[in-house]
């Protein structure tokens, strides 16, 4: 590291690192190549990130949006279709809005403004943009179904989207896009795809505070810490076409989804994993359960505490398609799962079956907060002084 860089690090500013699959420019390193060790980026003023299949959307504290990576479906929102963008570029068509929440799916994107407007762009082939057709858009387009509502959150999966409304207890969560695996949660019947938002069933008497989507999975967290999942069944389990409350006494505060697993964090800083034993995403490959076609009621058996953390409290979690990342109370970043593209940041392309500490070459223990974000095969870490 250059001396001038070290000086800059001492100043009060945020720090951003990326590693993993990079052949679409998604790492923001201005290079089209994978990185097996964390690369420090000089992108300033980012307050949060959303990472998709191979693109990244960054939100600034001023409510502005930047994006980079793969743009072949218009998912970057720059008003043009490009194979990839190597550096953070402003989504200028949203300049008149203060954006407070963003989400990146496989090849589509969602943006929520402080006034509760939802915009989507990118691939619309499965109706996942929610505009009533199957068109794709390279600029964010407002989702007219919600113009009289206040959208709080959007979550973009592989080919579907979920929306959480604010102050609308009876109809809080909506789904649209591909529904083949049950990921829309709008009907117990099989739905191939819908291109307009429909209400997700089962939350009539529950207050939902967060939604997430990845792969063909969907999840929601209630205000009292219950975790609901629907869509593709986690390994050995059937698909669920309606939200199922995880049978557990644990109270969760955050849940993130991969393509075959999920992580859930409790208020006490413990982390549990659902699914897994897939590509080494999970803990112990030697104790693969014979859990074929279990009913949803027995899903607690599929929930296991992430091993090797002892009593260390966890402050953040993230999941890529087949890898997992967490942050400890000591500011350490740990990764495990599939590592072929360097997405674990451990300097090689190997898999790990339990959390291993990533070396950033920088002491994060002084950082006020460290957040982690995963795209399908890559990882970002963001620290604030």
């Amino acid at each position, binding site marked *: 590291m250059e001396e001038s860089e070290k000086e800059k690090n001492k100043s009060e500013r945020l720090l951003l690192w990326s590693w993993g*699959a990079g052949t679409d420019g998604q790492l923001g390193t201005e290079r089209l190549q994978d990185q097996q060790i964390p690369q420090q980026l000089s992108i300033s003023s980012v307050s949060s990130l959303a990472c998709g299949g191979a693109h990244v959307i960054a939100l600034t504290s001023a409510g502005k949006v930047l994006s980079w990576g793969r743009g072949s*479906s*218009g998912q970057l929102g720059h008003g043009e279709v490009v194979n990839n963008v190597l550096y953070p570029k402003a989504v200028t068509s949203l300049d008149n809005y203060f954006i407070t929440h963003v989400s990146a799916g496989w090849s589509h994107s969602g943006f929520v403004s402080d006034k509760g407007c939802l915009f989507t762009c990118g691939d619309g082939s499965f109706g996942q943009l929610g505009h009533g057709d199957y068109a794709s858009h*390279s600029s964010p387009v407002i989702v007219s179904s919600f113009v009289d509502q206040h959208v709080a959150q959007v979550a973009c999966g592989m080919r579907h989207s979920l929306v959480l409304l604010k102050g609308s207890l009876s109809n809080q969560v909506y789904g649209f896009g591909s529904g083949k695996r049950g990921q829309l949660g709008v009907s117990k019947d099989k739905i191939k795809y819908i291109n307009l938002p429909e209400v997700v069933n089962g939350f009539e008497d529950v207050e939902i505070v967060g939604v997430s989507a990845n792969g063909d999975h969907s999840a929601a967290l209630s205000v009292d810490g219950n975790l609901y999942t629907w869509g593709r069944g986690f390994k050995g389990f059937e698909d669920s076409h309606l939200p199922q409350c995880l049978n557990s006494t644990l109270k969760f505060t955050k849940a993130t989804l991969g393509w075959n697993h999920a992580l859930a964090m409790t208020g006490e800083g413990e982390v549990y994993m659902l699914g897994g034993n897939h*590509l080494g995403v999970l803990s112990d490959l030697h104790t693969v359960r014979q859990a074929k076609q279990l009913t949803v009621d027995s899903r607690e058996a599929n929930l296991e505490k992430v091993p090797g953390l002892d009593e260390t409290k966890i402050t953040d979690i993230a999941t890529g398609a087949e890898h997992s990342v967490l942050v400890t109370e000591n500011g350490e970043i740990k990764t495990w799962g599939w590592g072929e593209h360097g997405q674990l940041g451990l300097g090689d392309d190997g898999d790990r079956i339990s959390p291993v500490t990533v070396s950033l070459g920088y002491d994060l223990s002084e950082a006020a907060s460290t957040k982690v974000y995963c795209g*399908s095969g890559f990882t970002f870490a963001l620290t604030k002084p």
Partner: protein
Amino acid sequence: MSYDDVEIEDMEWNEELQSYTYPCPCGDLFQITKEDLKLGEEIARCPSCSLYITVIYNMEDFLGDSDQHKGIQPSKQQSVTVA
């Protein structure tokens, strides 16, 4: 080991690649050509990583007339609207 089993109707025809594709967890696409399908090949590979999927399809749907195959829904893929 095959990463997943995917029905051909869930794959998307990619004109540029001249292949049926499906998202790979690495960020690239699993790919298989019509010629491969005609030969009975059922493995779609990702050019960027070691993973592959098993494609579920009827070989008969790909035999006979070269481009018009029955049983496969027309691709919904449309051009991207540039605003």
